[in-house]
């Protein structure tokens, strides 16, 4: 204060000046206070805005994390942003992957649905190409866009609807997966609002967070798709695939397993394998499983017997594989089974064929060897017969003149003269029959495979001859052989075998029926005939017929109604495969239970 002290004579002027100075100082202080207040207010506003934006980002991030799907995330974020910005309208688009256009989702936030309905329905009817309208601009530029005056904006197709709904400002931001825009969110306000760059930056971050939801959903979809594909692959293979967990509970049961064991997956899954109602050699499987899981090595079962759907025995080649490190407890062991029933049947059929071939070769050799001795036996017998006739004539001349006393029993000689020619004739008949059989055997044992011209009539007769031992005690044989039958091109040996089979079957059927009805004999009729395209041979019997229950199975391998040891179940199976597979012909059956059966071989005319 000493500096401003002044002498008394100048007091009034000094006071005036001092007052002016203090007033200026007060004004300066006041101005400084106002400026400080403005600075503080602005800082507070920024902090407040930052906090709100941060909170919005946190809420949006949480919404993106917790959302079950994209739509769920969109709806929550639309609501959050509308609440934050006090804007009444929010909407989301997704990019249509096929066209690249933006397509409206059903996700809207509308503060007043009635008021904004014109705008909503106008929007739902549109698709936005890149560059078109507000969302299209965002899609094209790949950044947020602010439109302070949409009703005056040139590139805004929804101008009229916006005007009706009273909307004036809009902004939109992209949803990113990586650097690709996959969707757009847009918001509208009634006021004319100026762009807020920091808000737009925050919204761009929200767009990235929303993109994570879509990315996650896509990844899940892809995973599901590849899982589905794997399932399709597993279910489409014909190999049986069974997965077991550490407790031996079934975790996988593919459609081949369903088919093989006639057990649906829904009944198998979750059950212990040993508890399932499977008709198979469980003890063998159990043993293999124990060894596999204990030693962690694959174990193979070569011929695992199981009951097929039709009740017949089937065979599986089963591999029991251990689950390996890194696999879940869900797959502790994997059973892989291949049905080898058909292979086994083919092998057996092959063996049968080989055996028949061997017999055939043997028969051919035997027939050849027998042919010559039979020939001279027959010739010699004829010679002996002729000679005996001569001797008899001579005896007839000399015997009445024989002197008494000769030790000749005249009666005995008369008896021998009568019987010897008959015995010789019977021997000749027998030898000729042997010769016929030998000829037929030679015929049938002709090396098979080649299709050569064959007269089915000849084949029929020789087959009847060979099989005569089977039918002659139970049936009469009738033949109706077409006199001008065309020549068939076929494997005569194989076809002959089929005919023999049919005759033998007919004889067996008749024998059973004879017993059942107490009749002495039945009747077999072998007929040949031809149509314009086919040459046919039928074998008809008056046996008991084939019951309905088994008619569909008579051509199956191993199927037989005969008692154990009598039939192999191969005859009709081989007959069918010979006629149908090797000769492109047909083997038909017509049967009436109680009346009889007709099998007809049809061979194509070539």
């Amino acid at each position, binding site marked *: 204060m000493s500096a401003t002290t002044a002498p008394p004579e100048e007091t009034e002027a000094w006071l005036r000046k001092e007052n002016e100075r203090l007033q200026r100082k007060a004004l300066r202080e006041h101005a400084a*206070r106002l400026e400080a*207040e403005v600075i*503080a*207010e602005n800082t*507070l*506003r920024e902090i*407040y*805005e930052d906090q709100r934006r941060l909170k919005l980002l946190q809420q949006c991030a949480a919404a993106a994390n917790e959302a079950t799907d994209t739509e769920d995330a969109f709806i929550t974020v639309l609501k959050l942003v509308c609440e934050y910005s*006090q804007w009444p309208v929010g909407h989301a688009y997704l990019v249509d992957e096929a066209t690249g256009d933006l397509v409206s989702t059903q996700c809207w936030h509308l503060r007043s649905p009635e008021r904004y309905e014109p705008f909503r329905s106008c929007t739902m009817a549109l698709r936005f190409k890149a560059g078109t309208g507000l969302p299209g601009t965002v899609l094209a530029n790949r950044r947020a866009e602010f439109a302070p005056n949409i009703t005056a904006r040139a590139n805004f197709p929804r101008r009229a609807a916006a005007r009706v709904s009273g909307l004036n400002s809009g902004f939109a931001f992209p949803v990113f997966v990586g650097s690709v825009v996959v969707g757009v969110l847009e918001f509208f306000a009634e*006021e*004319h609002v100026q762009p807020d760059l920091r808000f737009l930056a925050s919204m761009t971050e929200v767009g990235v967070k929303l993109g994570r939801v879509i990315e996650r959903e896509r990844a899940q979809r892809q995973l599901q798709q590849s899982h589905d594909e794997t399932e399709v692959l597993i279910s489409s293979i014909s190999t049986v695939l069974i997965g077991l967990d550490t407790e031996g509970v079934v975790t996988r049961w593919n459609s081949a397993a369903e088919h093989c064991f006639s057990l649906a997956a829904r009944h198998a899954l979750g059950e212990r394998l040993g508890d399932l109602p499977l008709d198979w050699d469980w003890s063998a499987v159990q043993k293999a499983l124990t060894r596999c899981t204990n030693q962690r090595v694959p174990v193979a079962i070569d011929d695992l017997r199981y009951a097929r759907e039709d009740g017949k025995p089937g065979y599986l080649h089963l591999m029991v594989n251990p689950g390996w490190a890194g696999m879940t407890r869900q797959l502790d062991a994997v059973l892989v089974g291949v049905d080898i029933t058909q292979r086994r049947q083919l092998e057996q059929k092959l063996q049968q064929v080989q055996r028949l071939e061997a017999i055939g070769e043997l028969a051919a050799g035997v027939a050849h060897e027998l042919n010559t001795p039979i020939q001279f036996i027959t010739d010699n017998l004829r010679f002996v017969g002729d000679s005996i006739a001569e001797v008899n004539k001579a005896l007839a001349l000399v015997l009445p003149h024989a002197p008494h006393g000769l030790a000749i029993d005249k009666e005995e000689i008369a008896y021998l003269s009568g019987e010897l020619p008959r015995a010789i004739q019977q021997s000749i008949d027998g030898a000729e029959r042997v010769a016929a059989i030998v000829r037929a055997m030679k015929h049938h044992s002709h090396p098979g495979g080649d299709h050569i011209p064959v007269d089915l009539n000849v084949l029929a007769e020789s087959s009847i001859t060979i099989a005569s031992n089977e039918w002659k005690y139970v049936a009469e044989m009738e033949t109706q052989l077409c006199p001008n039958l065309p020549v068939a091109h076929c494997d005569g040996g194989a076809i002959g075998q089929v005919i023999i089979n049919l005759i033998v079957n007919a004889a067996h059927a008749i024998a059973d029926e004879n017993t059942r009805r107490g009749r002495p004999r039945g009747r077999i009729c072998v007929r040949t005939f031809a149509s314009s395209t086919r040459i046919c041979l039928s074998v008809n019997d008056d046996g008991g017929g084939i019951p309905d229950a088994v008619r569909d199975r008579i051509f199956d391998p191993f199927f037989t109604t005969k008692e154990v040891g009598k039939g192999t179940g191969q005859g009709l199976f081989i007959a069918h495969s010979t006629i149908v597979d090797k000769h492109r012909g047909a083997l038909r059956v017509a049967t009436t239970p109680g009346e009889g059966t007709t099998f007809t071989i049809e061979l194509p005319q070539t």
Partner: protein
Amino acid sequence: MKGIIFNLVEEIVTRELGDGTWDALLEAAKVDGAYTSLGNYPDEELAGIVTAAAQALGKTPAEIVAWTGRLALPLLAQRYPQFFERHESARSFILSLNHIIHPEVRKVYPGATPPDFEFDASSPERLLMTYRSHRKLCAFARGLMQGSADHYDEDIVIEETECMQRGHEACRFSIAVTKRVAVA
């Protein structure tokens, strides 16, 4: 009560009635008078100042409050032009109070408790507004509305059909705004 209101009153009194009057009112109200816009001060201090002014000027407190409200508005328009620029009428300005202006107030003045208004804008002629506040400063609201009509060059008719000062549960205003016709 936020310091900004004290500052506005101080500015108006000083401008209209002189520096000394404000100091005299502060002394009469027995308050120290150091107010910054960012601070919070007891409502009673403002009531004391208003009472002192009413006594000194021979008016009712409500008249003093309405008078300051009307004169405060141009000061607010000067200080916060962004809230005024986007409107062309007092009606739409008043309607923006709840969702634009008061949220802003809350941003800048932590702890501020501005009133919430209820609006019925279904009639284009008459805007119905309900005011509820323990401060019962409906007169200030009326003054501000008159000030905003002045700002947009409009005539305003404000009827207060119910008033907390008269024992009602809330104050209800019926407001009609018309463009001022230029007098030749």
